[in-house]
Every structure is written in structure tokens, then in C-alpha cells.
């Protein structure tokens, strides 16, 4: 089982990102489960969402407490207690920011997961440039898929097209491609193989 926890703020498409990852995993023949931390559907409020991917049906319903990967869509949350919980086994933390590691002031995060597992990506800047709106979710997801190798770019594109159509889908896919190319190759050198890949190798 591979577990991802998404953190961000209401309006950034955090829940959609978790759902998209589950759709993409489903398209690859995996079992997947995605759900939000409920009841916080307000613009700007901290939101978490979860996605589990497995080769068998998923029965467990608890929120993801010990994520394999963390996708942080809003860097102002890097010192948030909920975000910092349960990171003992976390292999990858992807943070949307244009700051450097020092400027980010994520000492707790660094201490918990180790510097080599944190990857910073200016997803909001990419979104504003290409999608023309502050919607970093597809961009972050694309980078995550490129780094981990969990989902191919083709599958991700197909999944995005189930949620968006027309110009919005096109712009998101273009932005996703840019993020993919930015981080491609980082996976092999910077992170260990996700557990379930090892299991199924």
C-alpha cells in the first residue's frame, strides 16, 4: 500500500488532486481510495486530503496517518502540526514554493524527514504563467508522478481530462508537462524506491 497525504488551503484544489491521483492509479489497474479531511470547505482554510494506492481492494477507512509521500500545496503550512504528524516513514515531501530551503524556515520538517527527501517546486508561479490562475494542484501532482514514477504522464493526462475539459484541461496539461520536465530524473538520485514498487518488482 502506498499512501499520500495532501496539504493545502481551501480553493487550491487539494481534494481534486487526491481524487485525480486515485483516478490515474485506477486507470493503471490499481485499487485506489481518495477522500478529504471533511468539513473544511472554506476558501483559505487548511485542508488535507488522502490517497491510498494498492494492488488489492482497500478496506481501511482511517485518514492517512503515516504517509509515504506528502504533497504540500501551500508552503505556509510547513510548520503546521497536522502536516508534521506521522512522517517517520515518509520518503518524499514535495512543497509548492519559490523560496529556497533556508527561506522556507522548515526546520521541523527537515529534522523529521531529512533534507534529501524535500523537493521544492514553484508550482504557483507555473500555474500563474500557464493556467493564469493560482491552481497548483495538477502541477504538483505531475511533479509527484514524475519523481516517484508511480503514474505515467499519459495516464496523468487522461485522468486530468476526466475532471477538466477544453481550455482548462489543455492549460493544466501544458503546466503539468513543464513541472514534469523540471523534476524528471530527481527521483533516482534523491529518493528511495517507494515500498510498493519494491514489493511488486
Amino acid at each position: 500500500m502506498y499512501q499520500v497525504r495532501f496539504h493545502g488551503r481551501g480553493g487550491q484544489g487539494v481534494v481534486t488532486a487526491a481524487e485525480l491521483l486515485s483516478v490515474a492509479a485506477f486507470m493503471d489497474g490499481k485499487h485506489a481510495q481518495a477522500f478529504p479531511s471533511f468539513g473544511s470547505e472554506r476558501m483559505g482554510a487548511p485542508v488535507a486530503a488522502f490517497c491510498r494506492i494498492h494492488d488489492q481492494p482497500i478496506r481501511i477507512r482511517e485518514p492517512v496517518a503515516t504517509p509515504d509521500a506528502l504533497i504540500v500545496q501551500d508552503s505556509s503550512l510547513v510548520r503546521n502540526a497536522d502536516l508534521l504528524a506521522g512522517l517517520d516513514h515518509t520518503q518524499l515531501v514535495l512543497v509548492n514554493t519559490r523560496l529556497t530551503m533556508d527561506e522556507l524556515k522548515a526546520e521541523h520538517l527537515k529534522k523529521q524527514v531529512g533534507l534529501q527527501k524535500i523537493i521544492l517546486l514553484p508550482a504557483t508561479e507555473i500555474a500563474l504563467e500557464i493556467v493564469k490562475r493560482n491552481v497548483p494542484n495538477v502541477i504538483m501532482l505531475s511533479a509527484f508522478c514524475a519523481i516517484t514514477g508511480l503514474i505515467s504522464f499519459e495516464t496523468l493526462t487522461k485522468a486530468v481530462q476526466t475532471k477538466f475539459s477544453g481550455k482548462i484541461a489543455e492549460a493544466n496539461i501544458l503546466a503539468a508537462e513543464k513541472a514534469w520536465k523540471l523534476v524528471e530524473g530527481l527521483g533516482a538520485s534523491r529518493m528511495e524506491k517507494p515500498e510498493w514498487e519494491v514489493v511488486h518488482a
Partner: protein
Amino acid sequence: MLKQIEGSHAVAETIALCRPEVISCYPITPQTHIVEGLSAMVKSGKLAPCEYMTVESEFAALSALIGASAMGARTYTATSSQGLLFMAEALWNASGLGLPIVMTDGNRAIGGPINIWNDHSDTMAMRDCGWIQLYAESNQEAVDLHIQAFKLAEEISMPVMVCVDGFILTHAYERVDIPTQQQVDDFLPAYEPRQLLDPDDPISIGAMVGPEAYMEVRYLLHNRHLQALDVIPRISDEFENKFGRKHGGLVRTYRTQDADTIVVALGSVNGTIQDSVDDLRDAGHKIGSMSICSFRPFPLKAIRTALQHAQRVIVVEKNLAPGLGGILASNIRMALRGIAKPVTTVICGLGGRAIMKKSMSECLVKGHQDQLEDLSFIDMNWPAIERELEREKTTRRSGPMAENLMYAVSQDVMPEPVS
């Protein structure tokens, strides 16, 4: 067709396949995406012929369906939480009249304090309103139960409530096999009413019944539930033959064959419990579990049979009956009457409190070793409760309970009184 889809949308697509002729709903919180999806399908013409009525309250939503059902229409609505309670009077009328309305309840807590999250307080409050209550373990079961529910409701002429855990299932994306129209048409025959309001052949439905016949009419209602005990498993078997999936039925057991301890629960928490059971089996504990699908009628015999060889029973439930404890546990004790066997109640997940497998497993091990109290709680913040109780004892104007507790939890200290 296999889809990765949100629970509510999966249910909406399935309801459309069941060809309801009248849908009535009150479309604001507490609601689910189910009726939203159905309204879009009616508007686009995908679901036709179907009358979609948006009404002024949940009370009106069910009342409208009572009329429509008496006119011979296949009827559906969905609600949640306070919405179900606002339907209370109409619920009793629908069952008392024997009208085969199907409803989804996206299970949520009841205020006060105001809370929109999942537990079973709503359907438990309405457990004796005469409706059949079926609980879904997963979104696939939610889909399959609705198809079975229409067949069951119409065969015995009784309303059926399909209980689907709010948020945990209704808002979760997972893999669901949505049947084809042909499959559902083959399984679900056209509705043939037992009673019909027809201007060409007038009858009266809903007469006042005095002391001379009320008891007998109420017994007939009870008898329909007894009939359902036979019909529910039969329909579940028919469904399995046609669709290749075993869902519904009265109860389902998991690794209980040589189990010393059996854990009993309703709804989606069974998934987490089954994962716990696997872990505990690996650690050498002989534990199994049982999911109750049909809570009303309550299958006393099937439950007694399933539990008879266990040494003890742990009932995990998402409700708290103030002044009693767990509602499901007291029903289980009735199923086991005459057999000396400890039945303990474990309350969890109230108001959306996350149910973690780790806490569940710790609790089940304690129960397995006979270390649980009659009534216990998973992940309860006892220090916060004790401090509030102490303050109530020493301060007359101790202030509102909910606000005090929330402040205490957020500060992790006991606050000064609010007022």
C-alpha cells in the same frame, strides 16, 4: 462498468438505473451529492420519465413521496442527520401505510452540539420507525444495496432506508462497478403495487384506526419485517447469481470460524475492523468479525447462530444512547439471551472522530483478554472530560459544555468559565 467514482455519484447513477418515477428532496445541508446528481440527470433527460420535486423541507420531501407512492409510482429520496429527524413523523406514516419508498441516509451526527460529520446517531434515532434499515460497508455495497432495496421494498410493500456512512463513503473516491441498464432491468421487475389510489377505482388509504384494530395493524407491520428476514437473504442470493457479487443479506462474517472473540459492527468501520482482525490473527489472537447489514429487521437468529461458538462479543458502534450506552450492543444481547457470554460495548467515531486502526487493534486486544469495561470508548480525551466535570462540581455557573470542551481541547488546558 468499473469506475473510479465518488460514493454519492455512484449511488446517483445506480438510482437512475432503477428507474424511479418520482424523486423528492430538500437540497441543502445536510444533503449529499446524490440528489444533485439525480437532478442533473432528470434535467438532461437521461433519467426519464421522472418527476423531480424540490420541496421546502425534509418533512415535505417524504410527505410528497407518500402521496406519489400511494399513486403507484416508484419513489426515492435521500437525506442525512437533522434532515432525517425532520422527516420523523412522515417516516412512521410511510411504514405504517406500507409504502415501498427507498431512501438513502448519508449517516451523520445529530446536534447539539452542531456537527456535520459521520456517525450513526441519525438512523439509530429512527431505528424503530418501521423502515427496513440496511447498512453498507463500502461504496460497491451501497450501489448493490440500492438495487436490492427497490426489489425488497416493492416485494413486501415496505419502505427501505439504505444507510451509507456520510463523508467516509459518500465523499470517498473508490473503484465501483456500476451495472448496466440491462442488468438492472433483468433483476428489478416493474413495480406492482399492493394498494393504489386510482380515481377510476377509488379506495381509502390512511384511515383512522381505533383501539379495536390498531394493535393488529401494528402487528401486520411487524410481520412484514419478519417476512423481510426471509426475503433479504433470498434477494442477496439472486443478486449474487446475476451480478457475481455477494452483497446485502442479513449478516456477513469474517474469519469467525475458530474465533474466541467476535467483533460486531455496522457499516464502513467493518473495513478497518477486518484489517485489524488480519493483524491480530497474525499476532496469534483468535479474533473474527461480523458485519450486520440488516439492522431492521434485526436478524436475531442469524446473529445468535454466528456468535454462538465465540467466548465473547465486542460490539463496536458509532452511536451513544445517553443513559444506556450502545444501541447495537443491547440488541446483540437480546440475540444472545439465555447464553452466558460477555458482550462489551465500544463506542467510537462519534461526530466524525477518526477511527484509527492502531487504536481499534489495541482496544480489540484488551477485549480479547477480557479487560474491557461493559462500556468503553476509543480515543476519548478523558482528562478534558474530568477537568470539565470537576469544574461543574465546583462552579455553579460553569458555562456551556460544548464551548468549554472545545476551548479545553484547543488549549489543552482548562479555561476560565465562558460566562
